[in-house]
């Protein structure tokens, strides 16, 4: 069935978008640091995975933990940098990370040259001939990984004490300080987790799309869109937001043609922002225990 196939494609695309957005959303939610160098960090993770696969013949699945580790370290460095930034925090981090994005882009250009690279995925798709559907391993991986990431994040945030502290910081930084939460440490943890999530997205980005030093703006934009789409600090909303975006884009390409894709996404986003500024999921009552 055509529409089922369309749905699968849209969902896997949406999961991919959500993966790209996770790290950004967590960091932005907890620390309000607007990280415009997000895409470049994903590319770094991607390049790391690419070299691991190409020169050390590491099986793809193992690149994920390695990149997560690597990007966690990079994220800590980023946090140290952003700690130096003074208020107004949101705006200044935006500009500082803009500069950082330029720096990283050119460092990658010098180190890796402008050639395109990608991690090939050569496996043939699984064919569900009964329904005339195709689904590839990459698509499955995207969906599964994003689901796992969402569930883990959700469990972390809802079921652990650390998660509670993080949520408190997201909701109201001042009040969190008042109740004794070590806000600085929360920021560090947010960056660590965010870095791990970026490291998760890097190899998958290299496989689903391609790597080019100047290609960091796309993932950054996707991350920003989905974070705000989902509402700041709502992790399940990110996956849902990714899916909604994926479905919207696929539908618009199908019905209107590829040239109108961005317009539809933009209109959808604006409508959502105007009508439901707190994000896709309904706002829970504030004092829910």
């Amino acid at each position, binding site marked *: 069935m*055509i529409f089922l*196939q*369309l749905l699968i*494609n*849209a969902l896997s*695309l949406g999961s*991919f978008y959500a993966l790209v957005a996770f790290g950004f959303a967590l960091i932005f939610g907890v620390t309000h640091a607007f990280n415009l160098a997000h895409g470049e960090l994903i590319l770094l993770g991607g390049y790391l995975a690419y070299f691991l696969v190409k020169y050390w013949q590491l099986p793809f699945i193992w690149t994920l933990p390695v990149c997560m580790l690597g990007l966690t370290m990079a994220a800590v460095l980023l946090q140290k940098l952003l700690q130096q930034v003074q208020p107004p925090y949101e705006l200044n981090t935006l500009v500082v990370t803009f500069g950082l994005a330029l720096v990283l882009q*050119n460092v990658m*250009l010098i180190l890796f*040259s*402008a*050639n*395109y*690279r*990608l991690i*090939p*995925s*050569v496996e*043939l*798709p699984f*064919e569900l001939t009964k329904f005339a559907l*195709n689904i*590839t391993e*990459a*698509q499955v991986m995207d969906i599964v990984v994003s689901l796992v990431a969402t569930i883990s994040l959700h469990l972390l945030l809802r079921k652990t004490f650390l998660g509670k502290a993080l949520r408190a910081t997201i909701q109201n930084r001042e009040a969190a300080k008042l109740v004794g939460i070590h806000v600085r440490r929360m920021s560090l943890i947010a960056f660590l987790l965010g870095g791990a999530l970026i490291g998760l997205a890097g190899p998958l980005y290299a496989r*689903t*799309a*391609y790597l*080019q*030093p*100047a*290609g960091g703006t*796309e993932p950054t934009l996707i991350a920003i869109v989905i974070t705000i789409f989902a509402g700041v600090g709502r992790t399940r909303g990110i996956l849902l937001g990714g899916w909604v975006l994926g479905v919207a*884009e*696929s539908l618009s*390409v*199908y019905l209107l*043609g*590829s*040239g109108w*894709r*961005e317009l539809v996404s933009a209109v959808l986003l604006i409508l959502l922002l105007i009508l439901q500024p707190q994000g896709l999921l309904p706002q829970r009552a504030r004092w829910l225990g």
Partner: protein
Amino acid sequence: MAAQRSKAISSLANRPLWTCLAVLIVLTPILWRGPMPWLPTAAAGGAIRIGEVDPLTGKLANHGQEIHEGILYAVNEVNAQGGLAGLKVELISRDDQSQPEVAINQTEDLLYREKVLGLVGGYVDSLVGPVSELAAKHRTPYVASASLQSRLTQGRDNAYFFRVAHLKGIVEPLCRFVVEVLQPRRVSILYANTPGSTELGAEVRACLEKANIEVPIFEKFRSGLPDFSTFLLKLRQARVDTLISGGFFADHLVLVRQLKEQNVPLRAYLGPWGIAYPEFIETMGAASEGLLGMCAWNPDITLPGTEVESRNFVERFAAAFGKTPNTTNMHGYVSAKALLLAIAAVLKSGHELTGENIAKELRTVNLVTPMEHLAFDENGDPQHYRQTVVQIQKGRLVAIYPPDRASAGFMAPSGP
């Protein structure tokens, strides 16, 4: 902080005395690059200076650098043979960052401050156009390496603009190939939102419709799109058997991969840009088998009679740059060679080395290169530029059309 604030409050009118001073101090080293009488003028003091403006950074970086390498190779080749009439050739390269206003700035610098004798290079028409206008104003010849659109030569009276490639040289062979060899039932055309690709798409569609071939899907996409799966779904539904994709290297990477993943039954996938590169085969691996592309030259695909020159080029280029040259390198090489040849002719004839004379010599250039038999017409277009259609067979690029350049036939994909 509070003390500072009260101090500041009481100062009422805060004349930023230091602001002006700081501005002057910072700006002075930037601004004081005033008249420099010690700058050498072109060809005086023993060097022939030519300028190059290419996108060395930014989105088009890898193509710009390839053209740069080709030009550099040409200059080094000439210098290794003793230069032009004993004078060394100096290449001044500038980066236009893939932005027109930077291209304009850098061109002006090359023309007015560095006083180059000729310009070469350039990748897309939005960058080449402004450069060509400036060059004409300054009466300096400009040989563009990779300009394609017709608007740069039609209806414009620019005696100083020349180029070694044009879109007609791609569209004509493409169209004839599709009509004569492929004979498809339905063709779909996908083009990128750049001017060159848009024009290609429009021209190819017009040509195919004239030959009564149906084009059910004609779509524009924005380069950088990581997902074509919905588009491919539409292709499958429309039962198209040939896809002409006016995207670039990166787009093919994603599109072809998704094509294979979705198992879309296509008889032919043709990408005029980006496919006919050994790197493409290397990056894509087995998935590139059977794809069609177009190129003006490749290490094994060269103008009949130029095999020796082509081999020498490949060997020496690989020795100099550590990699096999591709068609973009060759475009840079040919454009630089044409310019240098014209300068050499002017020197030999004993006329003054001015832009007008070089341009006049360029008009009469008749150079056989591995890429084409180079001769410019009155608009500056190359008269004999025709690309060949190639197919990736068993991991190598094989020319399959036109028949006089073909070394193999078109292999339709086997299987269901």
